[in-house]
């Protein structure tokens, strides 16, 4: 697992986090390429199912990035997203997964540094946790049987 490179999905809202990611790029602030962004109009659109499906399909970590609290372009989509992330975390906990595999982030459109910083920290956190348990299970059918 030494050269484990996590695959990370970031659901980013159009108005803030996605723009912040563009900003990080235009300021040439480097962050790990592990993060792949899926753009949504508002983090309020991100369903618990989307997060769980991403994990099921093989994401090692998923985060939802929206506007700063109180600054949501659609009033409160980001606080709803936060509740859903918390819900998914509880659910993961019940499954015996690490809850840190999913997270909610907030940033304004101008915060390129914050985008890059959170991408870095989150990637590092997932690197520490190791691969998504589903992937391990798929690779090791015996081990799976042993459980």
């Amino acid at each position, binding site marked *: 697992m030494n050269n484990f490179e996590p695959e990370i999905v970031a659901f980013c809202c159009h108005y803030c986090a996605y*723009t912040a990611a*563009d900003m990080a790029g235009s*300021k*040439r602030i480097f962050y790990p*390429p592990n993060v792949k962004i899926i753009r949504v109009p508002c983090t309020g*659109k991100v369903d618990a199912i989307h997060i769980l499906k991403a994990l099921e399909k093989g994401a090692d970590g998923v985060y939802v990035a929206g506007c700063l609290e109180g600054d949501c372009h659609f009033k409160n989509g980001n606080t709803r997203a936060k509740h859903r992330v918390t819900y998914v975390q509880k659910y993961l906990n019940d499954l015996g997964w690490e809850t840190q595999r999913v997270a909610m982030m907030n940033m304004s459109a101008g915060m390129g540094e914050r985008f890059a910083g959170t991408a870095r920290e989150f990637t590092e956190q997932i690197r520490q946790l190791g691969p998504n348990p589903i992937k391990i299970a798929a690779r090791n059918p015996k081990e799976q049987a042993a459980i």
Partner: protein
Amino acid sequence: MQQHKDMNDQQYNGKSVLVIGGGVGGIRATLDLAESGRNVVLIDKSYAIGGLMTQLDRTFPTNNCDLCTVSPHLSESGRQQHMDVMPMTTLENLTGGSPDFTATLVTQPRYIDINKCTACGECAKRYPDWVRFTPGLDPRAPTCMRYPQATPYAFSIDMDKVTDIKKLQNICKANAILPDDKAVTKKQSVASVVLSVGADVFDSTCLDNYGAGNYENVVTGLQYERIMSASGPFQGDLARVSDRKRPKKVAWIQCAGSRGINSKRDVPYCSSVCCMYALKEAMVTKERFAKEIETTIFYMDMRTFGKDYENYFDRAQNEYGIRMVRSRPHSLVEDAQTKNLTVTYAQEEEPQCHTESFDMVVLSTGFRIGEETKDLAGRLGIELNRHHFAQSDTFNPVQTSKAGVYVCGVFESPKDIPETMVQASAAASMAATNLPAIVTDQAEKEKFLPERNVSQEPEKIGVFVCDCGFDIGGVIDVQKIVEYAGTNPDVAVAQAVGYGCSSESMAHIEKQIKDHQLNRVVIAGCSPRTHETKFQDLLRRAGLNKYLVEMVNLRDQNTWAHMDAPKEALKKAIKLVQIGISGVRRSRPLLDNTLPMSQNALVIGGGVTGMNAALMLAKQGIQVYLVERAPALGGLARSIQKTIEGGDVGAYMDDLIKRTMAHENIQVLTRSIIVDHAGIPGLFTTGIQTGLRMTYLKIEHAVTILATGALPNRPDEYLLGLNENVMTQIDLDTLIEDDTDKIQGMNQVVMIQCAGSREPGNPNCSRICCQTAIKNALRIKKTNPDADIFILYRDIRTYGFQEDYYREARNLGIKFIRYKASQKPEVKDSAGELSVKTHDFILGQPIEIAADCIALSTGFIADDETTEDLSMMFHLPRTRDHYFLEDHVKLRPVDMSVRGFFIAGTAHSPQSIRESVNQAQAAAGRAVTLLAKKEINLGAAHARVDSTKCASCLICVRACPFDIPFINAEGYSQIDPDKCHGCGTCAADCPAKAIQLLSFEDDQIMAKLDGLFERYN
């Protein structure tokens, strides 16, 4: 940029409005004019537009980086048809008269072809001395101006400094360097001119007592902004200039160079913005760097007179613990070793001097009109006032001394961004009246091919990958991506296209779509935020529905961000392209919802604001319904006689009412109230009960302007209403006009400021009371020079040029005595003899003043009942003290959050007649930009309910932030596509998955995940 070239030909056939100065005000005016269908030319002497605001780190009162909010509008302006932005351009002269001017414009050579420059920055990186990019302390762009459309996103060459042009040409991959570029002179036919040239920031180096320019740790407010800014000299780390260490103690000195009497270095007026920006800088210092940093503001009067600014001041003191010291420090001395600064100051309540050491001192410097602007005024032939700002009309603040030439922003008088935005819209609105709107010709819309029906076709995808010069192609091998994309069986065409957004490549892509009958397109290049609409238009031209394109962000979110790891960047690029391909497979043709727009306007409130707004709209051919609750037009302004400048309010109001009543496009409905309301922006229906019989009337309108005003406050204190000689300033105003004998009989007059304002119940400043008190005091002095007048105040807030009247009052011997909120004056009535007892800080003891008349400066209070009724009916937000709350306090001060609603006058916040007129014009102008669209485009991204799945559980009804879903007669949730904002919250919350957000449907999101992890879907 593209349109700069395209526009020239057609532009010069017709007349334009010329906007001079491309700061936020100029940009706002330009956008308003273009959106309302007027050709407009924006010139700016600098090589990039944006002005002063782009140098600010954050703005009050939100402490946000608000330029991020305006940039999407600018990005839209990249597509605006009627505008031409000309940087590095100045006005040489203006001949002719309104509305037939001819402007001679001179554009300096940029030595870069902005149509070719991709802003890759290679030239600036290699030869930083030769290339100009950004203002401020640092050669890097302020973060927010990195939006490609925000300015011409191109560099310019400082030819004087270039020693070897060949080297520069070699480094430019886009071949954009033009060594032989020349200045170009053009004649432009102009109907009206908007001046938004702003002002210079005072150069404080002449303030030797503060060591400005000599002491390293003494900076100006603007320099401090740059130091805090992420794009500033210390990359956003707060540090002292002398040792790069974070300061532990920072002081601000207010009024540096303003409100002074030393004519060699000070200006007498107040710069209006410095109190707020000092508070902001102090708050941001604590917020972003360290709570422990001690912040102190030395001030003369705290002038937080704007909307909700008093709350901001309270927060600064109470929540942030910013120390306020009322004093104008005498001098600063630098310690040679530590470079710390010792401030010497005295306070009025104590006899001795204090000294205190600080790590850093910020001088709150204000505005000055520079020589260039004075020259420009000379060339235009407009008059300047004694402070060299543009002289403007008392009742029409955007009108200069020359017909057809309008002014806005700081050049009119010192002001902050919201007021600049208001005036910019007002000036644009006035300028538009000289030029009829261009009717968008139907032919232009119809030049698109009819959309091909692709529903029965198997997916046939075209993938086009940009190399964007070095920006993508220099980091990753574009050919590898093309090869990879081609291995998808349904990808019919995969190609590299160089600069995908160049007109050449666009034409090529269009041809490929037609030749290969492609029905889905992936563009892998830059950000969809900036270029999606461009490629959507391309698809329309090629006969495809515009929602069949997917953009993959290979540059901003890949090669720019992973330049350090090209191998990984290539891997990621391939995955991103696959996400795009998988996603576009699931995209469906969608229809933008459009509806024809009504061309009527409803103006609620028939005071000075409502009438001005109605007239502005009526002049442009809009049918206006002007609804007034009272039996006659006029409102509160009818009870005011004079303005502080001496303008005759009565005569003005008579004329205004006459013009309003006479206008054929205005239907005046007095004794009328609003009773019901429905519809969507552009097509509202509002029910009104009108006349003595309360006849019910239904009117249809596209826009609504709220001008319902505020109420004169009558607080229950200081014996108001109990003694006839205790009166409000409005009563006194009438008395001065009507009863000269009574005024002449007065020996002593006491005025008490902030009566019923800036205290619990009405916590904000009423803004107009300081000027009103001084106005009335000066008028009493004129009638009765021997009268002794005492003005008891907390802070004198004579912002801008009102400071002149404050000084005049002091020179005439009017006494200003400060009191504290915790120690208010007491009014006594001993058998009809009135007196006021107050603490005198200079004497250090209470004093008692006998008074023949006590005038209370009571200001305004929100019309709670009216704003509550209307806000319920129209779903509009209000502030905590019950004024209407605008959509964006900084950048959209007269737009409401519900589209089609605008706010003006004292229903917005306390303000003077002059300021109300400005807002009325601005609201009308903003309304016209909406009306000019003629049709309502509702977009395609709206939520749709599948009634077969809906269980009517009400979750969507509760989840929607805008209260749009409802359970219809058939018992299912219904979402009106005309009202849906498209956030998708309901779709995510729906437990039955009965709701889908079009263009972001669940299967599209899943397909993208498949693309990332499994490739095929």
